[in-house]
């Protein structure tokens, strides 16, 4: 018991050291699929892995986006030649929604998945967060950059994980953090620039995606089975659908988000 605790703490310490030392010089590239290293549950067999794909359609036309005014910080305003709009609700040209976090909510049972070694990256650029919505696995590093010539403070407001608030002056070293517990989704804000908001989804598994400019998502490498897929949008909340995939099967699951239906 005590030995195990000791071993556990030693591992954590080693990981922390690794993260701390690694954070400084690693290039800023986005995580690929996790490399399997210590499978604890039944491993996913790549030969039978299935795929769920689809798109998220917005049912209510194209709403007028909210304008962001950056005059409170001249350095921010100077970085944008054209008007900047809030990323809260972004409807793509094809009527789909951008920045929807789509993930497997149920169906993976007790499978465990290794923590990716590559960090997820959250950049503060042009006094906006890039990406606006980001997913990570529990304990996966999140590398936070400040690419701006102004001061930001980064302040996640979780309910399940520890809250913190750190200042990042221009040229600050990247900040490496992680979230040990599952949480959907953690709002992140900058209190210097109150329009700056982003969301971090923390899951125990790698089956999540964020819709982009075409409003689609793809969840690859799923073991065959029955799943509940959820699509979460910061303003409209979440919608869910059930899907069953057989070995090597690809199924399409399209979501429709209506402002009224999804609990405005």
């Amino acid at each position: 018991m005590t030995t195990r605790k000791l071993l556990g703490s030693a591992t954590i310490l080693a990981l922390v050291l690794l993260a701390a030392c690694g954070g400084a010089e690693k290039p800023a590239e986005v995580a690929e699929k996790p490399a399997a290293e210590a499978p604890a549950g039944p491993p996913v067999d790549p030969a039978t892995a299935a795929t769920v794909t689809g798109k998220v359609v917005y049912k209510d036309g194209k709403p007028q986006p909210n304008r962001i005014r950056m005059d409170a910080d001249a350095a921010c305003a100077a970085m944008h030649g054209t008007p900047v709009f809030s990323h809260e609700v972004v409807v793509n040209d094809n009527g789909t929604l951008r920045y929807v976090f789509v993930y497997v909510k149920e169906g993976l049972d007790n499978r465990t998945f290794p923590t990716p070694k590559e960090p997820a990256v959250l950049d503060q650029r042009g006094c906006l967060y890039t990406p606006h919505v980001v997913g990570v696995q529990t304990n996966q590093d999140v590398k936070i950059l400040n690419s701006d010539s102004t001061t930001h403070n980064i302040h996640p407001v979780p309910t399940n994980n520890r809250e913190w608030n750190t200042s990042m002056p221009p040229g600050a070293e990247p900040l490496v953090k992680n979230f040990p517990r599952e949480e959907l989704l953690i709002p992140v804000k900058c209190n210097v620039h109150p329009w700056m908001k982003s969301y971090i989804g923390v899951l125990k598994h790698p089956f999540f995606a964020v819709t982009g400019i075409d409003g689609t998502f793809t969840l690859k490498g799923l073991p065959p089975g029955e799943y509940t897929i959820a699509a979460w949008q910061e303003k409209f909340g979440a919608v869910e659908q059930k899907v069953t995939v057989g070995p090597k099967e690809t199924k399409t699951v399209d979501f429709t988000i209506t402002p009224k239906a999804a609990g405005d």
Partner: protein
Amino acid sequence: MVAPPNTSLHRFALLTAAATFLLLAAGALVTSNDAGLAVPDWPLSYGTWMPPMVGNIFYEHGHRMVATVVGLLTTVLALWLCLKEPRRWVRRLGLVALGVVVLQGVLGGITVLFLLPRPVSIAHATLAQLFFCLAVSLAVFAGPAWREEAPKAVDASSPPLRRLSQATALALLAQLILGAAFRHSAAGIVPHLFGAAVVAFLVAWTARRVLVQFAAQPELVRSARMLAGLLAAQLLLGAGAYLARLGSAESAQPELFYVAATVAHVAAGGATLASSVVLTLWCYRRVSGPGESIALASTPQRATI
């Protein structure tokens, strides 16, 4: 024989109270702009005394700077009173004010370090208003009018005016706390609206009593008029703040009209409370209570003799 009033000390006390009023507005700007955590550290700001004043850092650090000025003014006032004020209870009140301003500063720091826990933010908002009342009271006590001996008006009504004005001040304090609880998302708006009705009723009652029965007491009349006027303004500003809140619910950032309406409502709330406290003080000074000969021992009036 009463010592001659010290006009420069009185002016300085007025200055401290006026600076505190500005500080209420500066603090409310922090909350309305959601700037409370724009500076994550304390007592320094970004490790220095003077961080770049961009974005919300301007509001948070600006608030700290105004608070520092008020802290210094209060220190000077307390020392000045200690040296020059003949009335011991006024000297003591100066020291209490100094203690409260220090405590208030520490509460501000704590709310930053602990990421704005609601109880601490609400306590900071409430103590701010109480400190403002202290500063205003000191200015009243240091003024020449307070020292003037005038025959006390007899109050035979029930409830006695002293009790009534006191109850109004306490109700206003409760209303400020309900407002702070709503503003810091610890309660709904309904208790605050209910409180507004109670407060409006009490203020109307008190003011009417003063204007009808004590029209010969200039200090009472002035404070009662002030209180009634501020309350009317405050009700309008409250409605404005509520509409502004609804109107900016969809905005990407705090809108100017929201900030203006809420800051005005918070500052006018402080002024309303302070004017009811001043009215209460004058009630004790110029109106006799039912058990006056017994109550005398505990009133400030006796100490001046």
